[in-house]
């Protein structure tokens, strides 16, 4: 540290040299500031460009039929109703199944496993799952639920999304429980309450806004997941709420429509892309504001 700064800070005998040095340092500082500003600008331009593209193309393609009609062959003015419904069903089920598991794991890590070797392994594994390529989770569920049970199904899609949301809930639950001061725990135990009541009635309640934030972020993440659904719920062009059969979903429909040669399908894909991005971004903003108001 000091060696880096020394040449610049060593007092120069000659005032002209000192002035030149000062100017050079100022210039380096100015260049770094400008480049940093440019970098931030680049990041913001990308976000703006994506949103602008989505709004421009998506709103142009948006009409009532998107919400009232199911997917149809090209040229017959179909909609996305079945895809939206399929996505909702799978995302809601995955959230309902994954949240309790994730909360229990997070609780285990924060309340039972401080410093234990098994706990460290679970934490490590959960973090790996958090960042593992989602397409592999699709392949895994294909091996586990699609091959043995004779075909693609909505349940397989739900299973894949559940595996993706669990580590997200684990991470936030543990983080939020770790923020709770130990004095609160000691106070509850000191009153004679059993540990499980301390966790469920006091710790969970104190951390609830943070945990809900995590769940919302998890929902936002799985709502846009495409790759794991390719091999699990596959997609379906008809209206289907039967979870034992292939089930349509918004991301899969967008994927197959965007790559199609039909103009009206591509437009529907843009409408779907706008819908899903709006939903994901709103969930994110909601989650963030919830976390801030909870603090």
């Amino acid at each position, binding site marked *: *540290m000091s060696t*880096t*700064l020394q040449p*610049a800070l060593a007092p120069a005998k000659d005032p002209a040299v000192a002035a030149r040095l000062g100017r050079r340092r*100022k210039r*380096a*500082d100015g*260049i*770094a500031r400008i480049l940093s500003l440019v*970098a*931030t600008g*680049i*990041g913001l331009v*990308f*976000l703006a*460009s*994506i949103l602008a*593209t989505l709004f421009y193309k998506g709103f142009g393609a948006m009409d009532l039929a998107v919400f009232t009609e199911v997917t149809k062959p090209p040229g017959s003015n179909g909609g996305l109703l079945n895809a939206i419904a399929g996505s909702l069903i799978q995302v809601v089920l995955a959230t309902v199944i994954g949240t309790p*598991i994730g909360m*229990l*794991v997070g609780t*285990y*890590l924060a309340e039972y496993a401080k410093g234990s070797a*098994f*706990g460290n392994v679970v934490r*490590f*594994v*959960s*973090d*790996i*799952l958090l*960042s593992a*390529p989602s*397409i*592999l989770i699709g*392949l895994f569920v294909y*091996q586990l639920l699609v091959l043995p049970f004779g075909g693609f199904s909505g349940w397989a899609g739900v299973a894949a999304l559940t595996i993706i949301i669990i580590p997200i809930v684990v991470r936030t639950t543990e983080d939020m429980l770790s923020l709770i001061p130990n004095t609160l725990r000691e106070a509850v135990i000191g*009153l*004679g*309450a*059993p*540990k*499980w*009541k301390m*966790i469920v009635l006091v710790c969970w*309640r104190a951390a609830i806004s943070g945990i809900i934030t995590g769940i919302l972020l998890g929902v936002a*993440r799985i709502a*846009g997941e495409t*790759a794991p659904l*390719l091999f699990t719920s596959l997609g379906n062009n008809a209206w289907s709420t039967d979870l034992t059969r292939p089930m349509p979903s918004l*991301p899969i429909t*967008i*994927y197959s429509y*965007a790559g199609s040669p039909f103009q009206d399908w591509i437009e529907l*894909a*843009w409408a779907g892309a706008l819908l*899903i*991005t709006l939903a*994901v971004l709103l969930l*994110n903003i909601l989650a963030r504001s919830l976390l801030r108001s909870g603090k």
Partner: protein
Amino acid sequence: MQQAATLPLGTPMGARPRRGARASSLGDTIFRVACHAAGGFVLLLLGSIIIALFIGGLPAFQAFGIGFLWSTEWDPVTEVFGAGVSIYGTIVTAVLAILLAVPVAFGVAFYLTELSPAWLRRPIGTAVELLAAVPSIIYGMWGFFMIAPLMSQYVQPAAIDSLGELPGIGALFQGPPFGTGIFTAALILAIMILPFIAATMRDVFEQVPPVFKESAYGLGATTWEVMKGVVLPYTRISVAGGIMLGLGRALGETMAVTFVIGNANRISTSLFGPGNTIASVVALEFGESETDSLKLAALLALGFILFVLSFIVLAISRWLLRARLKG
């Protein structure tokens, strides 16, 4: 709920000690077992993912041996499969994406922690985080319909005309300007991982004790000198961890890459040439492979290789970030 929480207060401790103690210890046991079981379930999950992918890919490993890793053959008709091209594409796009994303992410983190006025910090930080929340299929569509045409019309012709003439590195910038290809895929990947790296860098920069920075400022250092001489040396391990985290994301990204990489099973010297990655091959070819076919096994074997790659990178990332995780 309120009542239940305060119940122990009102209950005389000696009233029915044995019954109460037994009930609470039973509740405790159930809850503790449930928590431990959930923890074990996560372990089991990761273990079964590895095993399922390995068993599924075993026929391919047996048929092609270790050569599967570098064979560039991929012929469904003659049933000869090799992972060479897609491993190459996966690593090249991910590394290129890191090279493109890291300087920009560093700039964003520098701006957010040191330069930005306080009132702008949160909106810009949120915007960067929203960039991370956009689903990857949206990046794919945007890349395919907006970026790829821009690349083929402006960027690639200009690069081919100017850089393509150079001796040596010129080979990297030759060939027809398709728009899609290795470079476009890397660019989209870079945009996708930029917010992850920037957010990690921002978080670790903020953990530098203010007194370190203040001492440097007190000696007359400029903002840039504080960043270069104090903040970066103090956080360099965590910064490396954040970069590895981004690399891990880039390796396994599927939908965005599938849209823009051109999907050809060949290794081209030019960055503008088409290629594929493990994830894009699996996504595209899966639908055309039959149950119990050697091709399906080859795809699952590819999945296993990708899993090993990302596991290593993510484990390194976690190890580097351990100081930050302990907080």
